[in-house]
Protein backbone atom coordinates (compact mmCIF):
# COMPACT_ATOMS: atom_id res chain seq x y z
CA UNK A 1 0.00 0.00 0.00
CA UNK A 2 1.17 3.49 -0.76
CA UNK A 3 -1.01 5.25 1.75
CA UNK A 4 -3.72 4.92 4.35
CA UNK A 5 -6.11 7.38 5.98
CA UNK A 6 -8.91 7.19 8.43
CA UNK A 7 -11.94 9.45 8.12
CA UNK A 8 -14.89 10.13 10.33
CA UNK A 9 -18.19 10.44 8.50
CA UNK A 10 -21.21 12.13 10.02
CA UNK A 11 -24.61 12.41 8.39
CA UNK A 12 -23.25 11.23 5.08
CA UNK A 13 -20.54 13.87 4.81
CA UNK A 14 -16.90 13.46 5.66
CA UNK A 15 -16.16 15.29 8.90
CA UNK A 16 -12.47 15.22 8.21
CA UNK A 17 -9.43 13.01 8.16
CA UNK A 18 -8.07 11.75 11.43
CA UNK A 19 -4.78 10.04 11.09
CA UNK A 20 -3.06 9.35 7.83
CA UNK A 21 0.14 7.67 6.82
CA UNK A 22 1.54 10.73 5.07
CA UNK A 23 0.90 13.92 3.18
CA UNK A 24 -0.34 12.07 0.10
CA UNK A 25 -2.93 10.04 2.01
CA UNK A 26 -4.15 13.11 3.78
CA UNK A 27 -4.52 14.92 0.52
CA UNK A 28 -6.34 12.01 -1.11
CA UNK A 29 -8.74 11.79 1.74
CA UNK A 30 -9.28 15.52 1.74
CA UNK A 31 -10.52 15.18 -1.83
CA UNK A 32 -13.49 13.17 -0.61
CA UNK A 33 -14.21 15.80 1.99
CA UNK A 34 -13.98 18.58 -0.57
CA UNK A 35 -15.76 16.82 -3.40
CA UNK A 36 -18.40 15.15 -1.26
CA UNK A 37 -18.00 11.82 -3.00
CA UNK A 38 -15.70 8.82 -2.95
CA UNK A 39 -15.39 5.20 -1.88
CA UNK A 40 -14.73 6.15 1.74
CA UNK A 41 -18.06 7.95 2.09
CA UNK A 42 -19.86 5.05 0.43
CA UNK A 43 -18.16 2.47 2.65
CA UNK A 44 -19.06 4.42 5.77
CA UNK A 45 -22.67 4.90 4.70
CA UNK A 46 -23.29 1.33 3.56
CA UNK A 47 -21.23 -0.35 6.26
CA UNK A 48 -19.64 -2.46 3.53
CA UNK A 49 -16.12 -2.51 2.13
CA UNK A 50 -15.81 -0.69 -1.20
CA UNK A 51 -12.95 -2.15 -3.21
CA UNK A 52 -11.84 -0.41 -6.40
CA UNK A 53 -9.10 -2.26 -8.29
CA UNK A 54 -8.71 0.41 -10.97
CA UNK A 55 -10.18 3.91 -10.85
CA UNK A 56 -9.28 4.57 -14.49
CA UNK A 57 -11.41 1.76 -15.92
CA UNK A 58 -13.95 3.08 -18.38
CA UNK A 59 -16.87 1.39 -16.64
CA UNK A 60 -15.92 2.95 -13.30
CA UNK A 61 -18.29 5.91 -13.14
CA UNK A 62 -19.35 6.02 -9.50
CA UNK A 63 -17.27 9.02 -8.45
CA UNK A 64 -16.34 11.10 -11.53
CA UNK A 65 -14.86 14.08 -9.68
CA UNK A 66 -12.97 11.96 -7.18
CA UNK A 67 -11.55 9.68 -9.91
CA UNK A 68 -10.33 12.69 -11.88
CA UNK A 69 -8.57 14.10 -8.83
CA UNK A 70 -7.00 10.70 -8.10
CA UNK A 71 -5.71 10.37 -11.64
CA UNK A 72 -3.62 13.49 -11.15
CA UNK A 73 -1.89 11.96 -8.13
CA UNK A 74 -1.21 8.67 -9.91
CA UNK A 75 -3.31 6.58 -7.53
CA UNK A 76 -5.15 3.78 -9.33
CA UNK A 77 -6.54 1.49 -6.60
CA UNK A 78 -8.59 2.49 -3.54
CA UNK A 79 -9.91 0.17 -0.84
CA UNK A 80 -12.32 1.63 1.70
CA UNK A 81 -13.24 -0.38 4.79
CA UNK A 82 -16.05 0.69 7.13
CA UNK A 83 -15.43 1.43 10.81
CA UNK A 84 -18.26 0.93 13.29
CA UNK A 85 -18.62 1.83 16.95
CA UNK A 86 -21.27 0.08 19.02
CA UNK A 87 -23.21 -0.77 15.89
CA UNK A 88 -23.05 2.75 14.45
CA UNK A 89 -21.17 3.46 11.26
CA UNK A 90 -18.74 6.21 12.08
CA UNK A 91 -16.21 6.30 9.29
CA UNK A 92 -13.90 4.38 7.04
CA UNK A 93 -10.30 3.35 6.66
CA UNK A 94 -8.99 4.11 3.19
CA UNK A 95 -6.06 2.32 1.60
CA UNK A 96 -4.47 3.81 -1.53
CA UNK A 97 -2.17 2.20 -4.06
CA UNK A 98 -0.47 3.44 -7.23
CA UNK A 99 -0.56 0.05 -8.92
CA UNK A 100 -3.96 -1.19 -10.06
CA UNK A 101 -5.20 -4.59 -8.95
CA UNK A 102 -7.43 -6.31 -6.43
CA UNK A 103 -6.79 -6.63 -2.73
CA UNK A 104 -5.74 -10.16 -1.73
CA UNK A 105 -7.69 -12.15 0.82
CA UNK A 106 -4.96 -11.69 3.43
CA UNK A 107 -4.60 -7.98 2.84
CA UNK A 108 -8.36 -7.59 3.12
CA UNK A 109 -8.41 -9.47 6.43
CA UNK A 110 -5.53 -7.32 7.66
CA UNK A 111 -7.29 -4.18 6.52
CA UNK A 112 -10.51 -5.15 8.26
CA UNK A 113 -8.58 -5.73 11.46
CA UNK A 114 -6.92 -2.34 11.09
CA UNK A 115 -10.35 -0.78 10.54
CA UNK A 116 -11.46 -2.25 13.83
CA UNK A 117 -8.37 -1.11 15.67
CA UNK A 118 -9.04 2.38 14.36
CA UNK A 119 -12.05 2.48 16.69
CA UNK A 120 -9.91 2.79 19.80
CA UNK A 121 -8.06 6.01 18.97
CA UNK A 122 -11.30 7.27 17.46
CA UNK A 123 -13.00 6.94 20.82
CA UNK A 124 -10.20 8.94 22.38
CA UNK A 125 -10.65 11.49 19.69
CA UNK A 126 -14.27 11.98 20.63
CA UNK A 127 -13.18 12.70 24.19
CA UNK A 128 -10.39 14.90 22.87
CA UNK A 129 -7.40 13.18 24.41
CA UNK A 130 -6.00 11.35 21.43
CA UNK A 131 -2.64 9.77 21.95
CA UNK A 132 -1.63 8.74 18.46
CA UNK A 133 1.85 7.78 19.57
CA UNK A 134 0.45 5.23 22.01
CA UNK A 135 -1.94 3.87 19.41
CA UNK A 136 0.88 3.50 16.91
CA UNK A 137 2.94 1.56 19.44
CA UNK A 138 0.05 -0.84 19.76
CA UNK A 139 -0.70 -0.14 23.40
CA UNK A 140 -4.41 0.01 22.65
CA UNK A 141 -4.44 -3.57 21.43
CA UNK A 142 -6.99 -6.27 20.73
CA UNK A 143 -7.74 -7.20 24.38
CA UNK A 144 -9.54 -3.92 24.94
CA UNK A 145 -11.25 -4.30 21.62
CA UNK A 146 -12.57 -7.73 22.59
CA UNK A 147 -13.83 -6.25 25.83
CA UNK A 148 -15.85 -3.65 23.90
CA UNK A 149 -17.63 -6.25 21.79
CA UNK A 150 -19.84 -7.86 24.37
CA UNK A 151 -23.50 -8.13 25.26
CA UNK A 152 -23.10 -6.38 28.61
CA UNK A 153 -21.23 -3.50 26.96
CA UNK A 154 -24.09 -2.95 24.51
CA UNK A 155 -26.63 -3.06 27.35
CA UNK A 156 -24.62 -0.68 29.53
CA UNK A 157 -24.22 1.63 26.54
CA UNK A 158 -28.01 1.69 26.16
CA UNK A 159 -28.39 2.54 29.85
CA UNK A 160 -25.95 5.43 29.60
CA UNK A 161 -27.74 6.67 26.48
CA UNK A 162 -31.02 6.75 28.40
CA UNK A 163 -29.50 8.34 31.50
CA UNK A 164 -27.56 11.12 29.81
CA UNK A 165 -29.58 11.45 26.63
CA UNK A 166 -26.56 10.89 24.37
CA UNK A 167 -25.87 8.74 21.30
CA UNK A 168 -24.17 5.32 21.27
CA UNK A 169 -20.72 6.70 20.45
CA UNK A 170 -20.78 9.19 23.33
CA UNK A 171 -22.16 6.55 25.67
CA UNK A 172 -19.34 4.19 24.78
CA UNK A 173 -16.77 6.89 25.43
CA UNK A 174 -18.27 7.49 28.89
CA UNK A 175 -18.24 3.79 29.61
CA UNK A 176 -14.58 3.61 28.67
CA UNK A 177 -13.78 6.66 30.77
CA UNK A 178 -15.55 5.07 33.74
CA UNK A 179 -13.65 1.82 33.22
CA UNK A 180 -10.35 3.64 32.87
CA UNK A 181 -10.87 5.67 36.05
CA UNK A 182 -11.59 2.49 38.02
CA UNK A 183 -8.89 0.39 36.39
CA UNK A 184 -11.48 -1.98 34.95
CA UNK A 185 -11.98 -3.36 31.46
CA UNK A 186 -14.98 -2.03 29.56
CA UNK A 187 -16.66 -5.38 30.09
CA UNK A 188 -16.12 -5.31 33.87
CA UNK A 189 -17.43 -1.75 34.14
CA UNK A 190 -20.42 -2.72 32.00
CA UNK A 191 -21.32 -5.57 34.35
CA UNK A 192 -21.30 -3.18 37.31
CA UNK A 193 -23.60 -0.81 35.44
CA UNK A 194 -25.99 -3.53 34.21
CA UNK A 195 -26.26 -5.00 37.69
CA UNK A 196 -26.84 -1.59 39.26
CA UNK A 197 -23.63 -1.58 41.30
CA UNK A 198 -22.45 1.52 39.52
CA UNK A 199 -24.82 4.33 38.73
CA UNK A 200 -24.42 7.59 36.97
CA UNK A 201 -25.48 11.07 38.00
CA UNK A 202 -26.93 13.43 35.45
CA UNK A 203 -23.72 15.43 35.72
CA UNK A 204 -22.13 12.18 34.45
CA UNK A 205 -20.16 11.32 37.57
CA UNK A 206 -20.34 7.69 38.67
CA UNK A 207 -21.16 6.57 42.15
CA UNK A 208 -21.55 3.22 43.87
CA UNK A 209 -25.12 2.23 44.57
CA UNK A 210 -25.78 2.01 48.31
CA UNK A 211 -27.82 -0.78 49.79
CA UNK A 212 -28.70 -2.26 46.42
CA UNK A 213 -31.43 0.21 45.48
CA UNK A 214 -32.62 0.05 41.91
CA UNK A 215 -31.74 2.63 39.29
CA UNK A 216 -33.40 5.96 39.95
CA UNK A 217 -34.40 8.01 36.98
Amino acid at each position, binding site marked *: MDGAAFSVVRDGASAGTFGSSGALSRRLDDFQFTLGEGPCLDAAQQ*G*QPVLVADLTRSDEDRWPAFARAMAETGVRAVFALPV*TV*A*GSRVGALDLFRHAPGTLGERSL*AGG*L*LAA*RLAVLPLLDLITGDTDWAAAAEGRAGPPEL*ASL*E*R*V*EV*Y*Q*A*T*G*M*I*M*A*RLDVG*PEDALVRLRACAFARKLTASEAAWKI*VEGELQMDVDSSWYLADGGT*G*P*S*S
Partner: protein
Amino acid sequence: MIQAFVALANSLVDQFDVVDLLDGLTADCAHLLEVDAAGLLLADRRGVLHVVAASSERTRNLELFQLQREQGPCLDCYHTGQAVAVADLREEHGRWPRFATAAVDAGFVAVHALPMRLRDSVLGTLGLFSARVGVLSDDDLNLGQALAHVASVALVHQRAAADRGAVNEQLQAALVSRVVLEQAKGFLAQRGGLDTDEAFRRLRRYARDHNARLTHVARSVVSRELPAQRVLDYSAARHRRVAEP
Protein backbone atom coordinates in the same frame (compact mmCIF):
# COMPACT_ATOMS: atom_id res chain seq x y z
CA MET B 1 -42.86 -29.82 17.06
CA ILE B 2 -45.16 -29.36 14.09
CA GLN B 3 -46.26 -26.05 15.54
CA ALA B 4 -42.68 -24.88 15.69
CA PHE B 5 -42.15 -25.62 12.02
CA VAL B 6 -45.48 -24.12 11.00
CA ALA B 7 -44.65 -20.90 12.85
CA LEU B 8 -41.27 -20.89 11.18
CA ALA B 9 -42.64 -21.55 7.71
CA ASN B 10 -45.18 -18.75 8.13
CA SER B 11 -42.56 -16.30 9.25
CA LEU B 12 -40.35 -17.18 6.31
CA VAL B 13 -43.16 -16.45 3.88
CA ASP B 14 -44.12 -13.16 5.50
CA GLN B 15 -41.67 -10.38 6.07
CA PHE B 16 -39.78 -11.32 9.18
CA ASP B 17 -37.31 -10.04 11.69
CA VAL B 18 -34.20 -12.20 11.86
CA VAL B 19 -33.40 -11.61 15.52
CA ASP B 20 -36.98 -12.20 16.63
CA LEU B 21 -37.25 -15.32 14.49
CA LEU B 22 -34.03 -16.81 15.79
CA ASP B 23 -34.97 -16.00 19.38
CA GLY B 24 -38.20 -17.94 18.81
CA LEU B 25 -36.30 -20.76 17.18
CA THR B 26 -33.86 -21.17 20.07
CA ALA B 27 -36.78 -21.10 22.53
CA ASP B 28 -38.52 -23.87 20.52
CA CYS B 29 -35.29 -25.79 20.41
CA ALA B 30 -34.83 -25.69 24.16
CA HIS B 31 -38.44 -26.78 24.63
CA LEU B 32 -38.50 -29.55 21.99
CA LEU B 33 -35.17 -31.07 22.91
CA GLU B 34 -35.79 -30.64 26.63
CA VAL B 35 -32.58 -28.76 27.22
CA ASP B 36 -32.36 -25.90 29.69
CA ALA B 37 -30.85 -23.27 27.43
CA ALA B 38 -30.21 -22.89 23.73
CA GLY B 39 -28.23 -20.19 21.97
CA LEU B 40 -27.20 -19.34 18.44
CA LEU B 41 -23.70 -18.06 17.84
CA LEU B 42 -22.85 -16.44 14.57
CA ALA B 43 -19.35 -15.76 13.26
CA ASP B 44 -18.45 -12.33 11.91
CA ARG B 45 -16.05 -11.72 9.05
CA ARG B 46 -13.03 -12.41 11.23
CA GLY B 47 -14.42 -15.64 12.62
CA VAL B 48 -15.29 -14.15 16.03
CA LEU B 49 -18.47 -15.69 17.48
CA HIS B 50 -21.33 -13.44 18.62
CA VAL B 51 -24.58 -14.32 20.37
CA VAL B 52 -27.38 -13.62 17.94
CA ALA B 53 -30.24 -15.36 19.76
CA ALA B 54 -30.91 -17.28 22.95
CA SER B 55 -33.79 -19.08 24.62
CA SER B 56 -33.19 -17.03 27.75
CA GLU B 57 -32.45 -13.32 27.61
CA ARG B 58 -30.83 -13.26 31.03
CA THR B 59 -27.57 -11.40 30.64
CA ARG B 60 -25.68 -14.06 32.60
CA ASN B 61 -26.88 -16.78 30.24
CA LEU B 62 -25.96 -14.71 27.20
CA GLU B 63 -22.53 -14.31 28.76
CA LEU B 64 -22.12 -18.08 28.98
CA PHE B 65 -22.65 -18.42 25.25
CA GLN B 66 -20.45 -15.44 24.58
CA LEU B 67 -17.65 -16.95 26.67
CA GLN B 68 -17.17 -19.55 23.95
CA ARG B 69 -15.57 -16.90 21.83
CA GLU B 70 -12.34 -17.96 23.53
CA GLN B 71 -12.91 -21.64 24.24
CA GLY B 72 -15.66 -24.24 24.45
CA PRO B 73 -17.67 -26.76 22.43
CA CYS B 74 -19.30 -24.11 20.23
CA LEU B 75 -15.95 -22.70 19.16
CA ASP B 76 -14.62 -26.21 18.43
CA CYS B 77 -17.77 -27.01 16.47
CA TYR B 78 -17.40 -23.81 14.46
CA HIS B 79 -13.78 -24.59 13.59
CA THR B 80 -14.30 -28.24 12.66
CA GLY B 81 -17.83 -28.04 11.24
CA GLN B 82 -18.61 -31.17 13.28
CA ALA B 83 -21.12 -31.60 16.10
CA VAL B 84 -19.68 -31.75 19.61
CA ALA B 85 -21.45 -33.69 22.38
CA VAL B 86 -20.37 -33.57 26.01
CA ALA B 87 -22.20 -35.78 28.51
CA ASP B 88 -20.58 -34.32 31.61
CA LEU B 89 -18.64 -31.06 31.58
CA ARG B 90 -17.10 -31.80 34.95
CA GLU B 91 -14.89 -34.34 33.20
CA GLU B 92 -13.80 -31.82 30.58
CA HIS B 93 -11.94 -29.27 32.70
CA GLY B 94 -8.72 -30.06 30.89
CA ARG B 95 -10.31 -29.41 27.51
CA TRP B 96 -11.99 -26.05 28.27
CA PRO B 97 -10.93 -24.94 31.76
CA ARG B 98 -12.61 -21.52 31.82
CA PHE B 99 -15.75 -22.49 29.98
CA ALA B 100 -16.34 -25.73 31.91
CA THR B 101 -16.01 -23.93 35.24
CA ALA B 102 -18.38 -21.13 34.25
CA ALA B 103 -20.99 -23.50 32.79
CA VAL B 104 -20.95 -25.82 35.81
CA ASP B 105 -21.20 -22.79 38.14
CA ALA B 106 -24.28 -21.71 36.20
CA GLY B 107 -25.84 -25.14 36.73
CA PHE B 108 -25.18 -26.77 33.34
CA VAL B 109 -23.37 -30.10 32.98
CA ALA B 110 -24.17 -31.47 29.50
CA VAL B 111 -23.50 -29.46 26.35
CA HIS B 112 -24.08 -30.01 22.64
CA ALA B 113 -22.90 -27.83 19.78
CA LEU B 114 -24.34 -28.28 16.28
CA PRO B 115 -22.92 -26.57 13.19
CA MET B 116 -24.97 -24.09 11.12
CA ARG B 117 -23.80 -24.69 7.60
CA LEU B 118 -24.39 -23.13 4.23
CA ARG B 119 -22.96 -25.25 1.47
CA ASP B 120 -19.27 -25.66 2.34
CA SER B 121 -18.94 -22.91 4.93
CA VAL B 122 -19.82 -22.88 8.61
CA LEU B 123 -21.81 -19.76 9.61
CA GLY B 124 -21.97 -20.43 13.33
CA THR B 125 -23.25 -22.95 15.85
CA LEU B 126 -26.31 -23.87 17.86
CA GLY B 127 -25.39 -24.50 21.50
CA LEU B 128 -27.61 -26.61 23.76
CA PHE B 129 -27.05 -26.61 27.53
CA SER B 130 -28.58 -29.08 29.91
CA ALA B 131 -28.63 -29.38 33.70
CA ARG B 132 -28.73 -33.19 33.50
CA VAL B 133 -25.82 -35.49 32.69
CA GLY B 134 -25.97 -37.35 29.37
CA VAL B 135 -26.00 -36.88 25.61
CA LEU B 136 -29.12 -36.40 23.52
CA SER B 137 -30.67 -39.28 21.57
CA ASP B 138 -29.95 -39.53 17.84
CA ASP B 139 -33.53 -38.47 17.08
CA ASP B 140 -33.17 -35.36 19.18
CA LEU B 141 -29.81 -34.57 17.66
CA ASN B 142 -31.26 -34.89 14.16
CA LEU B 143 -34.11 -32.59 15.09
CA GLY B 144 -31.68 -30.09 16.59
CA GLN B 145 -29.54 -30.23 13.46
CA ALA B 146 -32.64 -29.69 11.29
CA LEU B 147 -33.50 -26.59 13.34
CA ALA B 148 -29.91 -25.36 12.94
CA HIS B 149 -30.22 -25.80 9.17
CA VAL B 150 -33.46 -23.85 9.17
CA ALA B 151 -31.73 -21.08 11.12
CA SER B 152 -29.06 -20.94 8.40
CA VAL B 153 -31.72 -20.68 5.72
CA ALA B 154 -33.51 -17.96 7.67
CA LEU B 155 -30.30 -15.99 8.02
CA VAL B 156 -29.35 -16.24 4.40
CA HIS B 157 -32.84 -15.55 3.17
CA GLN B 158 -32.01 -13.80 -0.05
CA ARG B 159 -32.72 -16.29 -2.80
CA ALA B 160 -29.76 -15.22 -4.85
CA ALA B 161 -27.27 -15.18 -2.02
CA ALA B 162 -24.87 -16.94 -4.33
CA ASP B 163 -21.72 -15.09 -3.50
CA ARG B 164 -19.90 -14.92 -0.22
CA GLY B 165 -20.25 -11.14 -0.10
CA ALA B 166 -24.04 -11.23 -0.01
CA VAL B 167 -24.00 -13.89 2.70
CA ASN B 168 -21.55 -11.85 4.76
CA GLU B 169 -23.73 -8.80 4.40
CA GLN B 170 -26.77 -10.62 5.77
CA LEU B 171 -24.86 -12.12 8.67
CA GLN B 172 -23.44 -8.70 9.47
CA ALA B 173 -26.92 -7.18 9.42
CA ALA B 174 -28.13 -9.81 11.90
CA LEU B 175 -25.22 -9.02 14.21
CA VAL B 176 -25.84 -5.28 14.07
CA SER B 177 -29.53 -5.89 14.82
CA ARG B 178 -28.48 -7.78 17.91
CA VAL B 179 -26.29 -4.87 19.07
CA VAL B 180 -29.22 -2.46 18.73
CA LEU B 181 -31.50 -4.87 20.58
CA GLU B 182 -29.06 -5.01 23.51
CA GLN B 183 -28.82 -1.20 23.55
CA ALA B 184 -32.61 -0.93 23.59
CA LYS B 185 -32.81 -3.39 26.48
CA GLY B 186 -30.36 -1.24 28.43
CA PHE B 187 -32.19 1.93 27.45
CA LEU B 188 -35.57 0.65 28.67
CA ALA B 189 -34.06 -0.92 31.78
CA GLN B 190 -32.57 2.43 32.76
CA ARG B 191 -35.72 4.45 32.06
CA GLY B 192 -38.08 2.00 33.73
CA GLY B 193 -35.88 0.89 36.63
CA LEU B 194 -36.15 -2.72 35.40
CA ASP B 195 -33.70 -5.53 34.86
CA THR B 196 -32.70 -6.13 31.24
CA ASP B 197 -34.68 -9.37 31.09
CA GLU B 198 -37.93 -7.59 31.91
CA ALA B 199 -36.97 -4.74 29.59
CA PHE B 200 -36.72 -7.27 26.77
CA ARG B 201 -40.12 -8.77 27.60
CA ARG B 202 -41.76 -5.35 27.37
CA LEU B 203 -40.01 -4.52 24.16
CA ARG B 204 -41.14 -7.77 22.59
CA ARG B 205 -44.69 -7.42 23.86
CA TYR B 206 -44.93 -3.93 22.39
CA ALA B 207 -43.53 -5.13 19.04
CA ARG B 208 -45.88 -8.12 18.80
CA ASP B 209 -49.02 -6.25 19.78
CA HIS B 210 -48.21 -3.51 17.28
CA ASN B 211 -47.33 -6.01 14.59
CA ALA B 212 -43.92 -4.39 14.27
CA ARG B 213 -40.52 -5.94 13.86
CA LEU B 214 -38.57 -6.32 17.08
CA THR B 215 -35.45 -4.84 15.51
CA HIS B 216 -37.42 -1.89 14.20
CA VAL B 217 -38.92 -1.10 17.60
CA ALA B 218 -35.49 -1.48 19.25
CA ARG B 219 -33.98 0.93 16.74
CA SER B 220 -36.80 3.45 17.23
CA VAL B 221 -36.32 3.37 21.00
CA VAL B 222 -32.57 3.90 20.75
CA SER B 223 -32.98 6.73 18.25
CA ARG B 224 -35.76 8.30 20.43
CA GLU B 225 -38.27 8.24 17.57
CA LEU B 226 -40.41 6.09 19.82
CA PRO B 227 -40.56 7.42 23.40
CA ALA B 228 -39.27 4.76 25.81
CA GLN B 229 -42.07 5.65 28.21
CA ARG B 230 -44.69 4.61 25.67
CA VAL B 231 -43.20 1.12 25.43
CA LEU B 232 -42.88 0.89 29.21
CA ASP B 233 -46.39 2.16 29.94
CA TYR B 234 -48.04 0.05 27.28
CA SER B 235 -46.55 -3.19 28.51
CA ALA B 236 -46.85 -2.29 32.17
CA ALA B 237 -50.61 -1.95 31.76
CA ARG B 238 -50.79 -5.48 30.36
CA HIS B 239 -48.17 -6.71 32.76
CA ARG B 240 -50.19 -5.93 35.90
CA ARG B 241 -52.30 -9.02 35.38
CA VAL B 242 -49.18 -11.15 35.77
CA ALA B 243 -47.20 -11.40 38.99
CA GLU B 244 -44.32 -8.97 39.33
CA PRO B 245 -40.88 -10.58 38.97
